[in-house]
C-alpha cells in the first residue's frame, strides 16, 4: 500500500471515530491530532486506536442507559432463577410434592423429573445449598448494581465460582449415575457463556460509575 492511500484510510477512520465518539469535543480532539502526525503508518495506528476508543466510549454511554441496566438486571435475575431451579426440583421431589416436581420436570430435558431421580437421590444435601448460595449472590449483585453501589462484580464472580464448583460436582454425580441432566452440550455451554458475558457487561457498566462519596 502506498503512503497516500494509507493516509486517506486513516482520515476516513478518524471521521468515523469522531462520529462514533459520543462527546463531540473529544471526537474533534482525536481527529485534529491526525494532522500533527507526519508518518502515515503511525497515523493509521492512531486512527485505528481512536475508532476503538470511540466505540468503547459509545458502549460506556449505552451501558448507563436505563434500558441497558434493565436488560442486565433481567439477565442477572434469570441467572439467579437458574441457580434456584435444581434445588427447588430436588426439594419438591424429596418432600414428595410431586405436583411441583412434575411441573418443574416439564422444564428439563426429557420433560419428566422421574428421569432425574437417580441423580437427585445421589445429590448430597450441601450441593443444592451451594446453588442457592450462588443464586442469592447473583441477587445481591443485582441489588447492588441497581442501587449503583460498589461490590456487585466480586459478588457476581463469587456466584459464578460457586456455580462452576456445583457444576463440576454435578458432572461427577451424573457420571456415577449414568444420567445426563442436560445432554445438549451447546445448551450447557450457552449457560456458562451467558454468565461470563453478563459478568463482563456488569464490569464495564460499574467501572464507569462515579466514585462513591462518604
Amino acid at each position, binding site marked *: 500500500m502506498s503512503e497516500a492511500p494509507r493516509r486517506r484510510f486513516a482520515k476516513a477512520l478518524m471521521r468515523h471515530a469522531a462520529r462514533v465518539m459520543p*462527546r463531540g*469535543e*473529544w471526537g*474533534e*480532539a*482525536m*481527529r*485534529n*491530532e491526525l*494532522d*500533527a*502526525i507526519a508518518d502515515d503508518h503511525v497515523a493509521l*495506528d*492512531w*486512527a*485505528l*486506536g*481512536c*475508532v*476503538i*476508543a470511540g466505540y*468503547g*466510549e459509545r458502549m460506556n454511554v449505552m451501558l448507563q442507559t436505563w434500558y441497558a441496566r434493565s436488560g442486565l438486571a433481567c439477565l442477572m435475575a434469570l441467572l439467579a432463577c437458574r441457580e434456584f431451579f435444581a434445588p427447588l426440583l430436588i426439594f419438591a421431589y424429596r418432600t414428595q410434592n410431586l405436583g411441583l416436581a412434575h411441573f418443574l420436570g416439564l422444564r428439563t430435558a426429557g420433560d419428566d423429573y422421574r428421569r432425574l431421580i437417580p441423580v437427585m437421590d445421589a445429590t448430597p444435601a450441601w450441593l443444592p445449598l451451594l446453588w442457592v448460595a450462588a443464586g442469592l449472590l447473583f441477587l445481591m449483585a443485582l441489588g447492588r448494581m441497581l442501587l449503583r453501589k460498589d461490590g456487585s462484580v466480586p459478588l457476581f464472580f463469587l456466584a459464578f465460582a460457586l456455580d462452576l464448583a456445583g457444576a463440576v460436582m454435578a458432572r461427577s454425580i451424573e457420571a456415577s449415575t449414568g444420567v445426563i441432566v442436560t445432554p445438549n452440550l451447546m445448551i450447557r455451554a450457552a449457560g456458562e457463556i451467558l454468565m461470563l458475558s453478563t459478568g463482563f457487561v456488569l464490569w464495564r457498566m460499574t467501572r464507569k460509575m*462515579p*466514585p*462513591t*462519596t*462518604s
Partner: protein
Amino acid sequence: MGRKPIFSSQTGRLLQVLLNDPSAWQHGYGLMKLTGLQSGTLYPILLRLCDQGFLEAKWRESETAGKPRRHVYRLTPNGLAFAREQIAPARRGTGALLGAKA
C-alpha cells in the same frame, strides 16, 4: 472525603509523564509518544481523568497556518496532589521501571 479511584498501570504511566512537567500543556499525540500508549488506550484514560477532575483540557490554536486547533491537557491542582501521592511512592520503589518511559 472522596474515595480514591483505582488506576491501571497505563494511567500510572500517563500520570507519571504529566507529573514530570505539571505546568506544561500536552497534546494527545505528544502524550502517546511520551507514554508509549496507543490512542485507543490513551483517550479513554484522558476522558476518565477529566471526568474525575484530575485533568483539565483546553483548545490551543495551531502554530502552523491551516492546521486545526489541538486539545491540550495538564493536571489540575487536585490531579497534581493525587499523582504526587500515588506516583511518588511507586517511583521510590520502582524508580528504574517508571523512569524508563519518562
